[in-house]
């Protein structure tokens, strides 16, 4: 910190904590801190944390007016969420599961079943 001087031990720990955040943003090659980025929007991980209405049925009981394309159901656990027992698991076991599915609305039939 340039304008504040940490004086006691607690202030020192706060400075270290803040410095770690800056290191996390720095370029690993040069070790130089990258220019300060605005905070990323906070996206909670895990489907139980996300409230997204309109996946299942629309207001008329059909699927024509969903807020999200129905195909998103196929991908949401796969891409937006991870925990170790999950299948399919894009981090460890099935990183290529959607390789053949360039556009979900068109290619979703190409996605195969997964057997652990």
């Amino acid at each position, binding site marked *: *910190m*340039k*304008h*504040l*001087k*940490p*004086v*006691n*031990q*607690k*202030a020192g*720990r*706060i400075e270290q904590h*803040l410095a770690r955040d800056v290191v996390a943003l720095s370029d690993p090659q040069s070790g130089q801190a990258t220019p*300060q*980025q*605005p*905070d990323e929007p906070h996206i909670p991980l895990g489907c139980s944390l996300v409230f997204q209405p309109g996946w299942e049925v629309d207001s008329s009981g059909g699927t024509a007016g969903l807020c999200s394309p129905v195909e998103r159901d196929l991908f949401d656990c796969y891409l937006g969420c991870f925990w170790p027992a999950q299948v399919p698991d894009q981090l460890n076991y099935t990183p290529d599961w959607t390789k053949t599915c360039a556009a979900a609305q068109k290619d979703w039939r190409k996605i195969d079943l997964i057997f652990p």
Partner: protein
Amino acid sequence: MSVRSEVALSTGEYHAFEAAGRQFLYMVPSAAVFGLDETSAAVLEHLGGQSMAASELVDQLADRFAPEAVYHSVNELMQVRAVGEADAPPQPLAKQMPPTPFPLTTLVLNVTNQCNLSCGYCYEYSDDKIVDTENGSQPKFMSEETAQQSVDFMMGESAEIETVHLTFFGGETLMNFPVLQKTVDYARDRAAQLGKGIEFSLTTNATLLRPDIIEWLADNEIGVTVSIDGPKEMQDQLRIFKGGGGTYDIVVPKVRELLKRHTTRPIGARVTLTKNVLDVKKIYDHLRHDIGFTEVGFAPVTTSWGRDWAIGDDGFDKMIRGFNVLAEEFLEAALENRHHGFSNVKDTIEEIHKGISKAYPCGAGLGLLGVATGGDVGLCHRFAGSDDHKLGTVADGIDHRYQVEFLETHHVDDKTDCQKCWARPLCAGGCYHEAHTRYGTTRGPNLHYCDWIRAWTDTCLRVYGEIAEHNPGYLTIFEGRDQ
């Protein structure tokens, strides 16, 4: 974190103070201390109690600082939460409870509830007492068996703690000297068996000190605190024998012997300040320099409203003036790396340096418990023996559910008055026993002390700031020590 230039900003929660020509912030509730440079001091001064966008700050400070410097300074102040967005919803921190069962580090044994003195203000015997010491169920003296059970209880409750502290209290502790001796031997053996360290201390009025007792205290490295109120005219006002005679002439020669022979541990004096015993500087000089105590600590008497000895508002002003004089002396000594024996300031400086932010005012019911003469376990020595504050017994153990309930209901976050006070990281509402005596409940803060606590904490912060600027090496004596 980034500064949005048009969003209104306002100041966060802190106490600003000045020392050694520099501005400092004492952050609340983190208890961090930051020194400000000119830019950040100017930013906070302009922001004051109002809300203002960063771009306005830049404009107002344009003749003194470059825009980038102001933005950078605001960014840092926001990172440490000295500044925040004015309209941001409050983000209260979650109430943090200590882990339970919390290991015991200190056990205080009330080895007797009897005393050979008759000090008017004594919380154990005066009208403010909460333990029935005369007609109650607790025996007058702790038995050897109960003392040993207490030691076993302490060893069990201390879990993985490497060094435990056993403190003897009373009544007058030396009235039960035989049990003291046997308990120290027993505790030392038990600690050795368990591979733990153990330290002992006791508090006494010094009237019963004899050469053989002094020898024993020195040989066993028992820390000794002497309750003494100052020069003869002050000591003899309220610290009197049952017949009414003063104790000064009996006590002082014995204390001098103690100080001469017992050099294995620092010997401290503990002064109770009352309405007419308030000349802090005179008391300190007498006890430290004329008699030779290593440290002198002061505490205002615990009393309900309206007692003859209760300190009034003007008395608190006098007391704080005396404390400030001694704090200045302490500072001069610290800058030259000399010892100064005013323990009130030293203890607070240590807490400031470490950045301690308390959820509870003291360790009572947490890492410290008190045992009454019959073996009942209370929050601390002041509550030991009170049926209303009983956690269990040393023989049967304590009810940890009661302990958890106590901790949940006495957390500083639940003390509404404290939530507006910048001194809460150090005070946390103050002594439970004091609150109980004044207000009839342990749950509330000691509101009669608030102004005094804030004035005193401000003094200690300024002393700390001076030391940190001019002789930071001195502060290393506080580092690495257990709290």
